[in-house]
């Protein structure tokens, strides 16, 4: 009986938090037009923080993910004498799945944690309360630009991830393993449809919204202590990873 009660309250807590998260999302959306029109500089600064500063980790990871796709693709396809299709296989894997998903996971680890801890520390050191006291809405001034910065950055980072990943696959399969140069690009052109690219774009936008929303939510609701900020940072990565993988499955199921 006690277990049933605990499960009931856990579900209740989950749905309560989920409801509050939706209201929080609406608050961010409500503040978006004002900030975009009157303070675009704040958003651009956050695109730099979330996007430009994540470039190194995204590019290095993409290069090696692409390289692995080249190796695995070549190894598997050569069993059917179809190694010339490695370009198409690598590109489809990157554009539809790995690009948006891995970028979102890396984004959560780099930019998401930075956002959550920054906002959490601002709360712990009374910076948000000080803004309230200066009659400045901290949701609009602090959270909305950071949220938008993440939302704008994610699709751009995913696109860069795809390009570098394809170059990594090209380098491994064509330069190192001897797949024909023309076949690599031709198979890619023949097999990759605009719908595949759109699927990847939609995923990266959705993941960008979710990853940024969870990061600012966790930071803003962090318990204002060192331990509380640490926990919020950890929760950001865990919650984003789970949400991204679930949403990835759902979007893929709809697309197929």
């Amino acid at each position, binding site marked *: 009986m006690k277990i049933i009660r605990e499960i009931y309250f856990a579900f209740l807590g989950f749905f309560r938090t989920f409801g509050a998260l939706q209201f929080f999302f609406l608050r961010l959306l409500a503040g978006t037009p004002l900030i975009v029109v009157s303070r675009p500089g704040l958003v651009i600064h956050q695109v730099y923080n979330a996007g430009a500063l994540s470039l190194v980790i995204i590019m290095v990871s993409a290069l090696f993910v692409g390289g692995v796709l080249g190796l695995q693709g070549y190894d598997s396809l050569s069993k059917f004498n179809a190694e010339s299709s490695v370009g198409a296989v690598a590109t489809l894997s990157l554009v539809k799945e790995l690009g948006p998903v891995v970028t979102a996971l890396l984004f959560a680890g780099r930019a998401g944690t930075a956002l959550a801890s920054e906002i959490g520390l601002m709360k712990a050191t009374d910076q948000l*309360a000080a803004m309230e006291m200066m009659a400045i809405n901290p949701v609009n001034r602090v959270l909305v630009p950071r949220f938008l910065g993440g939302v704008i950055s994610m699709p751009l980072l995913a696109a860069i991830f795809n390009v570098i990943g394809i170059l990594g696959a090209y380098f491994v399969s064509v330069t190192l393993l001897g797949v024909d140069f023309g076949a690599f690009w031709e198979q890619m052109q023949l097999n990759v449809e605009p719908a595949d690219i759109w699927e990847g774009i939609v995923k990266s936008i959705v993941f960008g919204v979710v990853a940024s929303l969870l990061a600012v939510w966790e930071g803003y609701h962090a318990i204002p202590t060192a331990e509380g900020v640490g926990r919020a940072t950890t929760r950001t990565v865990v919650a984003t990873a789970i949400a991204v993988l679930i949403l990835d499955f759902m979007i893929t199921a709809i697309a197929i």
Partner: protein
Amino acid sequence: MSEQSESLIEIRGLDYSRGPRQIFRNLNVDIKRGQVTAIMGPSGTGKTTLLRLITRQILPDKGVILVGGQDIAQLNTRELYQIRRRFGMLFQNGALLTDLSVFENVAFPLREHTDLPNRLIRHIVLTKLHAVGLRGAAAMMPSQLSGGMARRVALARAMVMDPEILIYDEPFVGLDPISMGVIVRLVRRMNDALGITSIVVSHDVREISTVADCSYLISDGHVVASGSPDDLQKAQSEIVRQFMHGMADGPVPFHFSAPDYAEQLLGRDWS
């Protein structure tokens, strides 16, 4: 009633609880216009909570807080922000924005609330920084400042919009004697020169007694004494005497509530 004795902030019958603990019960306080009012009390009595209630960062369970005759609990967000522009608040740790320089921290409210040209903002910010003696630190970052300097910058920021009421939350905590002397002097000077009303929350009896016109001593959720610092010094009440003279034991016990010492040492309280 003369202008000097008019209450700018009136707190009537205030009750506030945090979880099972009642912080205030039937608290009554008057903050007179143009005066420096000290809110004193032992650690944990809810002095900072009272400031948060006055500025409606939290809401009371019962009672009213009138600011200039307006019940702040009844204000909508726009009206609340309007009234908060009449306040300047100095947080205990300064609460400076760590990604902005000293200059930009002080300029922050001006940039957010006005369309003043940069030249004028520069002029106002340098004037305020000069008033707290830190014009030379304008280009520094908050991480480069000492505790006393950070609090002075926060004071410059708190008064940059020319507030009607300046609130200081524990302004003397953790400061060396020189920095403390500077802050004490600034509290009085700002109040008199700018004609504002000041509320200072502190448990530093000696320092606060030198600047306050009126003091409230809060303990156990209500006002146990009020009046001029001299009145409080002469008060015969045990709790007031213990606090004002810094006696370790008295109505506020040295020991936190605990089981019997001998019983605990013998382990009989273990169940």
